[in-house]
């Protein structure tokens, strides 16, 4: 039981970093960004290649973050400057990134079992007591998530963050403030994809190898988590939306873990995901209608 909860928390929190990225594009910018299916493995490819060349694993996360941001900027430029529709810009970047990722990695599968990662290194071997070892993965992920969340929350309170939120709700406001709404969108996409690539990098380090196919379906997981989180916790005032999104990611992973644990075949999991999706949407609408009627 403990292992299963530990597994859910690890996976859920790890993916919540990606989910925060999807939250920025989908919820704040109202931009359904499909490029994340490419940026998730992009982060993995970058971190794994750099680690196998001997770079400090923590430092590789920074590189993954920035390379992810660059991918986001490209999606943004395609959309804003070349006026390609949002959905299509994402698809273009996602498709192209598949080849780019293979180029960066050199091949489709790279193991880093024999290298140090943020989860396995001399420091942990030396200073972490034996008893804590099974939890160290979770502890490290919690620390990263807390840092990311704190930075993101602070950013959203800044002027640039306000503009970001305005760009999704009310583009006219951004223009009336004499700000370039296109630039705001590009910044949003950059931050979002940077977070997704960061999550992909941490994921690859956690499982000990990079595998190109692991990006497929990232956007579905992200959207499901964002919707579960924001809908399930929308009426609970003291929970910030970013926290709700993180909780959504954990709930999503818990549902998948429970389904697997009950012996449901993997081929049915997508159906379960979509059903869960639908239930959450219906429940939240149900409640909204009641509020309106009253």
């Amino acid at each position, binding site marked *: *039981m403990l*292992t*299963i909860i530990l*597994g859910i928390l690890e*996976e859920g929190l790890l993916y919540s970093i990606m989910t925060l990225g999807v939250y920025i594009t989908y919820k704040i910018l109202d931009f359904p960004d499909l490029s994340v299916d490419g940026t998730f493995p992009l982060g993995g490819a970058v971190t794994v290649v750099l680690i196998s060349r001997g770079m400090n694993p923590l430092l590789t996360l920074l590189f993954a973050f920035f390379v992810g941001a660059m991918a986001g900027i490209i999606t943004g430029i395609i959309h804003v400057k070349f006026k390609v529709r949002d959905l299509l810009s994402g698809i273009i970047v996602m498709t192209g990134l*598949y080849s780019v990722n*293979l180029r960066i990695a050199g*091949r*489709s*599968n790279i*193991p*880093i*079992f*024999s290298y140090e990662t943020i989860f*396995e290194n001399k420091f942990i071997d030396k200073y972490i007591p034996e008893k804590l*070892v*099974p939890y160290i993965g979770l502890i490290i992920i919690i620390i990263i998530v807390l840092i990311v969340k704190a930075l993101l929350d602070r950013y959203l309170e800044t002027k640039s963050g306000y503009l970001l939120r305005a760009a999704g709700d009310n583009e006219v406001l951004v223009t009336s403030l004499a700000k370039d709404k296109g630039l705001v969108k590009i910044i949003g996409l950059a931050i979002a994809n940077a977070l997704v690539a960061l999550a992909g990098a941490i994921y690859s380090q*956690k*499982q*000990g*190898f990079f*595998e*190109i*196919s*692991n990006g*497929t*379906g990232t956007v579905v*997981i992200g959207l499901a988590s964002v919707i579960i989180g924001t809908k399930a916790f929308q009426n609970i005032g003291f929970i910030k939306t970013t926290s709700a999104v993180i909780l959504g990611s954990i709930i999503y*992973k*818990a*549902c*998948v*873990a*429970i389904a*697997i*644990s*009950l*012996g449901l*075949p*993997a*081929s049915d*999991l997508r159906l379960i995901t979509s059903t869960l999706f639908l*239930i959450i949407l*219906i*429940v939240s609408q*149900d*409640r909204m209608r009641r509020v309106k009627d009253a």
Partner: protein
Amino acid sequence: MKKTIYLVLTSVLLMSVLIGCNKKEKITTIGIAQFADHGSLDNCREGFIQGLKDNGYVENDNLKIIYDNAQEDGVIGNQIITNFISKKVDLIAAIATPMAQSAYGGTKNKNIPVVYTAVTDPVLAELANPDKTSVGNVTGTSDILPVTEQLAMIRAILPNAKKIGIMYTTSESNSLSAIKEYRAAAADYGFEIIESGIATAADIPLATDQILEKVDCLNNLTDNTVVSSLSAILNKANKKSIPVFGSEVEQVKIGCLASIGLDYFDLGKKTGAMAALILKGEKQASEMEFEVIDEYSFYGNSKVAEDLGIILPEDYVKSAKEMFNEVVQ
């Protein structure tokens, strides 16, 4: 409405806990995680179960098997491994490279041995050291392809052929290492290899049409995506009377002309025997080298040969492990 749903979710969670804790004495539990759904890997699994049985571990008697298939989704594969760990299985059997890596990565510090099979290159996958010794609590069997034997066979069947077409998925590392070997050995047999890399199964029809224009025959690897779409490829190749060679028995059964291949059932059986040694406590996975099958057999399909107007060389047919005279759909 919302409360009901939470109630359902909570009870589902509770149920899974109860199921997880329900463990009887003296019954060994193993988890088998398979990466994809196709004939070779299925044979591997069945062979594995047989290998355990031959060594005293009989399913539903003293052995409980939890089986799950990731359907080529690595993220799900990871969660399958986490599930096995939470069910406290005594051993994890992982079929195909990504699954083996998930299992090994996931069970570090967990004291659960991993036995893999159908991993083409365990050294490249960092599951074994270059001297074949294990890198941790993990061992298994490799399904490395008999490349030179296959090329010699193609030369014997098609004395005038020059170009061999190989389709592979750019995301499958098994295929990439096999292609490298084919490229290196082809010239020795007077062949040129024409490659066609695809990204997804959806690319196959177009890629097949294009490559068929350029080659004298096609040759399959153990590429999961290509093998899964083999009937579509065979259909197109047959229309142009271009022979397709398989990489193992299942492919010959469904319409490839011939193959020098390994028997995945035997490979699985060998792996099962290794797993039994570990379960009995006679050996640790960490002290076992990975093994390969060094006997390869010829498989031929006389119906396909007849349709193509090709006569299979007699010495090959005589030594065949199995000849098929129909195409199984």
